[in-house]
């Protein structure tokens, strides 16, 4: 795949992903100082990434490079690791240990669990998809032999 095409795909994905992250962070500002915005984008991103990867492979039969560029751009920019470390630092510096603990547990454990869940659902969806494809192929084959 050409460099220009890769850049273009990432440009589309990252623009949408990055803007969404920024807008959600503005929308989810809380008076309490708990970083809801970062937590929300990271958890939803971790959940949807595996689903999106498998969906793009199955549905559109895209190459691995294209799928990587699309998901790297969109979900990669939608989620963020650096802002999460910044939030952690500020919560620690402000001495709010309750929020810090909650935030770290929700991010570390929650992110991992959401990702596992996304992968499970993607696998289940793929199983149904391939079964459906195989049945279709069998029906076609049967038709051919009947003729």
């Amino acid at each position, binding site marked *: 795949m050409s460099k220009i095409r*890769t*850049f273009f795909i*990432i*440009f589309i*994905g*990252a*623009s*949408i*992903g*990055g*803007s969404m*992250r*920024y*807008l959600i*962070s503005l929308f989810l500002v809380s008076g309490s100082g708990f970083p809801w915005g970062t937590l929300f*984008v*990271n958890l939803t*991103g*971790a959940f*949807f*990434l*595996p689903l999106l*990867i498998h969906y793009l492979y199955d549905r559109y039969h895209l190459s691995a*490079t294209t799928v*990587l*560029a699309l*998901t*790297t*751009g969109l*979900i*990669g*920019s*939608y*989620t*963020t*690791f*650096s*802002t*999460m*470390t*910044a939030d*952690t*630092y500020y919560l620690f510096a402000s001495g709010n240990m309750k929020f810090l603990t909650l935030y770290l547990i929700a991010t*570390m454990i929650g*992110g*991992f669990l*959401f*990702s*596992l869940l*996304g*992968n499970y659902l993607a696998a289940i969806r793929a199983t149904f998809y391939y079964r459906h494809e195989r049945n279709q192929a069998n029906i076609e084959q049967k038709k051919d032999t009947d003729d």
Partner: protein
Amino acid sequence: MNVVLVALGATLGAYLRNELTVASRKVKLDFPWMTFLINAVGAFLLGVVTAKIGNKAILLFLGTGMCGGFTTFGTFNFELSQLWFQHRYVRCFIYFCLSYIFGILGFALGIQL
């Protein structure tokens, strides 16, 4: 306007990450070392940028946009769950711990430089 700055920064960050990830495949370490490196370095850079830059527009472009787009939480957790599904639990745990420790310490170091 702010959204455009973030979007442009995120594009540059994500493109850089994609190029580095593709290039890193040449070095087979059986460990997603490039994402780890990207997240640690990105967190450090966000710390530096936050501490050094006062202009809000530039901060949005470089910090929220570029560092935010360069680092990733989605891919990090996807790689974690891949290691988990391959039953490589020790590797998964090491990747998990190293990323969080170096990421948070990286930001703290960057902001205090």
